[in-house]
């Protein structure tokens, strides 16, 4: 049993190590500070700045949009809906939604684009990815909010606060570290997702200037570069994957550290 544990951890670590060792030598300053020049996909000059900026815009926008919806929902589920049918139904529905493959989200966003007759753009990417991270974020926040001690709320009500005031000024402050973790978790998930944005965000060599421009993303940059037959471009795919991994893993570590830091504002 300890052996199978080793196999699991080992294979996951080896995977990260292989990609990092293969990609790190190909990584250079120009890779991350330039957009692709002419003939980039044939092995000429350029970088993946378009994809880095695109990914950050897309995941950032999506996380913000999902946050605006999921914080009220999480608070509502706990403080207003209580143990009602609506609450348990919403939780089940969100759990199930969280299991839906990202390519289906892509197809879903795509049907809306068909209805409206619009082209792939940053805006649609943001909407689709926001839907994708919504269940993850909401359920993570829900768990945190649920753990807030009842006494804290009762103290607030005893002072004559309304539900809204309790929720905004007491509960969300107490849940702050957990909310932060949920947001970063969602951001990491959003930036790493590729299948959904493939259909709705398009791909371009330029940095997006408005919400209606198509946008490049890092995972797709990896995917398209590994698909070319040129070894030099394939090396860049590994380097792009290292950039992506770096962002995702540092987010994950940052969320742990920040959670610890913010714990001091929490009433124990």
């Amino acid at each position, binding site marked *: 049993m300890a052996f199978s544990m080793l196999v699991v951890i080992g294979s996951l670590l080896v995977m990260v190590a292989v990609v990092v060792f293969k990609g790190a030598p190909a990584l250079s300053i120009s890779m991350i500070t330039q957009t692709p020049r002419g003939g980039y996909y044939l092995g000429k000059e350029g970088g993946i700045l378009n994809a880095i900026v695109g990914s950050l815009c897309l995941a950032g926008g999506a996380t913000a949009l999902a946050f605006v919806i999921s914080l009220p929902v999480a608070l509502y589920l706990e403080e207003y809906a209580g143990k009602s049918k609506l609450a348990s139904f919403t939780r089940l529905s969100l759990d*199930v939604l969280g*299991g*839906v493959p990202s390519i289906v989200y892509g197809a879903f966003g795509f049907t809306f684009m068909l209805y409206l007759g619009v082209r792939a753009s940053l805006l649609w990417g943001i909407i689709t990815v926001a839907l994708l991270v919504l269940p993850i974020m909401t359920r993570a926040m829900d768990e945190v909010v649920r753990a807030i001690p009842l006494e804290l709320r009762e103290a607030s009500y005893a002072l004559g606060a309304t539900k809204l005031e309790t929720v905004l000024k007491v509960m969300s402050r107490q849940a702050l570290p957990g909310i932060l973790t949920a947001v970063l*978790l969602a951001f990491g998930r959003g930036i790493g997702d590729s299948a959904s944005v493939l259909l709705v965000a398009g791909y371009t060599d330029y940095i997006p200037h408005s919400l209606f421009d198509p946008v490049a993303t890092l995972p797709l940059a990896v995917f398209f570069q590994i698909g070319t037959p040129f070894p030099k471009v394939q090396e860049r795919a590994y380097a792009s994957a290292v950039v992506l991994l770096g962002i995702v893993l540092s987010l994950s570590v940052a969320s742990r550290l920040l959670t610890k830091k913010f714990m001091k504002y929490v009433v124990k």
Partner: protein
Amino acid sequence: MKRKLKDLFASRIMLLLTVFSSLIVFVMMFTLFQRSRLILTTQPLSELFFSSSWRPLSGEFGFHSFIIGTMWVTTLAMIFAVPICLLSAIYLAEYAPNGVRSIVKPLIDLLAGIPSVVYGLWGVLTVVPLIRDYVAPFVGATTTGYSVLAGGIVLSIMVFPVIISVSEEVFRTVPYEVREASFALGATRWQTVKHVVIRSSLPGVAASIILGFSRAFGETMAVLMVVGNVAKVPSSVFDPAYPLPALIANTYGDMMSIPLYDSAMLLAALILLLIVLFFNVVSRIILLRIERRSM
């Protein structure tokens, strides 16, 4: 008074958002169904599901080889993943010292966040050549390496974190007294695990496996990169396959120019959604029951 009004107003908005988020799944199903109705009315169901002739240009859309391809890859992944994951979860829940657990659990969470493209890249880099140069010659087969087997291996590693974390949670909900009762009867640790812990958490373990299965079923990019994408029913694990999600991802570019093509793609998405939803609902209901029992 103003505070009361504000409270009322906010609670209505929150209710609205909650209802909205609980209905997303249904909206998704409905719109996909709407768009795929076109192909459902022009082609008989039997043709769509049991014909393997995939010629979009002449209007033939047989999903058979794609469905079988998905099945092959997913089943293979589960065959690899389930024993290893369950043993690891048992180890983590029952045997591992606290120090090990406190390192391994966050590590698994961390690794669960790795984007699927990275898994796919690793598959292209390591698994595919390994199969081409060592595994296939060893059993006397020739292959490009881009095969069902490669897809299965990459997928199995992707579902490790899901199955392990869920089933470990389930094992831990078994009350400690039950274990002590078993020890008191003179059972060894393994006997206790086998006859007491596993038996009482069987539904939960099933739920964790189903969750892993549905995750693997819908996974797109990593599989797309290593499975070869040939629209034919595979006859061995060294043959390439073409799973449903990969089909949707690969053909969106020329979807618009061929009539019925977009409808067929969205039907593929609908099929995927329905299958995954079914599995997810089942496993979530099992897990909810367990959660209630443990409270």
